[in-house]
């Protein structure tokens, strides 16, 4: 297999298996539809280029997530320079007022939109970890992607998750 066809083959495999996860990642990082489309294309391009050097020392999944997160990182830093984006710390999220139409969110679609809004509002690094968690990655994979220790990953995930769940449920339980 030539280097170019190997690169194409790896990219096809990554796009097929992790394409939806990359799209969700782009949703979490970019709310503007046009910019999000650009970001997704940028992720694919960067991934395709990077796979020229893929040596299978880590799994294709870890490699793909690293590249996707890194492209999104550059995108966020670049966009932050151009326009003010609202990213909230966990404390700020907890202090956010719950929406009035709490019961309406019984609708699953609204619940999904709410999860997305909560993830989009997370501070950058918390969001990176939460995304990996929501995609179903284990602590070892998250550790390989981020460079944090597995124990540190779980401590942080636990904290972020608790805040998100409390925020997600807040208002609902108060109203009952």
């Amino acid at each position, binding site marked *: 297999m030539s280097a170019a066809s190997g690169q194409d083959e790896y*990219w*096809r495999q990554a*796009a097929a298996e992790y*394409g*939806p996860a990359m*799209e*969700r990642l782009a*949703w979490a990082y970019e709310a503007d539809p046009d910019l999000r*489309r650009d970001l997704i*294309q*940028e*992720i*694919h*391009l*960067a991934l*395709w*280029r*990077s796979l020229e*050097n*893929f040596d299978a020392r*880590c799994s294709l999944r870890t490699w793909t*997530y*690293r*590249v996707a*997160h*890194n*492209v999104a*990182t*550059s995108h966020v*830093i670049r966009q932050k320079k151009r326009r003010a984006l609202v990213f909230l710390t966990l404390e700020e999220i907890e202090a956010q007022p719950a929406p009035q139409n*709490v*019961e309406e*969110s*019984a609708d*699953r679609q609204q*619940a*999904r939109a709410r*999860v*997305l809004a909560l*993830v989009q509002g997370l501070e*950058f*690094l918390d969001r*990176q970890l939460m995304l990996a*968690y*929501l*995609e*179903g990655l284990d602590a070892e994979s998250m550790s*390989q*992607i*981020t*460079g*944090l220790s597995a124990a*540190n990953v779980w401590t942080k995930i636990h904290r972020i*998750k608790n805040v*998100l*769940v409390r925020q*997600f*449920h807040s*208002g*609902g339980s108060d109203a009952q």
Partner: protein
Amino acid sequence: MRSDYLPDDLRRLWQELALNPVQVSADDLRREASKLRARLSLRNWFVAGVCCVIIAAYGFFFFRSKTALERIGSALSIAGAANVIVQFLKRPARTMPSASAMESIRFYRAELERHRDFHRGKGIASWLLPGLPGPIIFNIAFALDRPIFAPIVGLQLAAFLMIAALVVPLNLRMARKYQRRIDALDAWR
């Protein structure tokens, strides 16, 4: 009910997000990569072209100037423009999306450092600063030899100093902002 959604449901909710996947093929990516490479190459040639015009203009003044100070200014300007070409070709600014598969936190820190250093003028200093003394000396020499142009040259220098007085502190402020984010990241880890 919202309270029915437990952490595992959050995962499911997330993974259910309705998406319209962007359709791209390896050939599309290859085409896009060559387009970006072509754009980068065009930009490099443009900068090199502008610098060549500057070199030609100051080369002309070097041979036609009447005073030694003007010749010194011309020679320094030529050297400054040549330095820009060398620096630009040696380390072109990034236009291709980053293809790094580095651990994401390390990558984030490296990006913050890159932006901090940019605002501290690390890159610009090596490009522009060596190019500044030449035109300044040349303009002063030009004004000394032709007093009629002295007010214009004086205005130019004053404008330059005013812009520098605004731009430098603003950039240093941005650099401090990035440093604070680096410190926060280190504390977060």
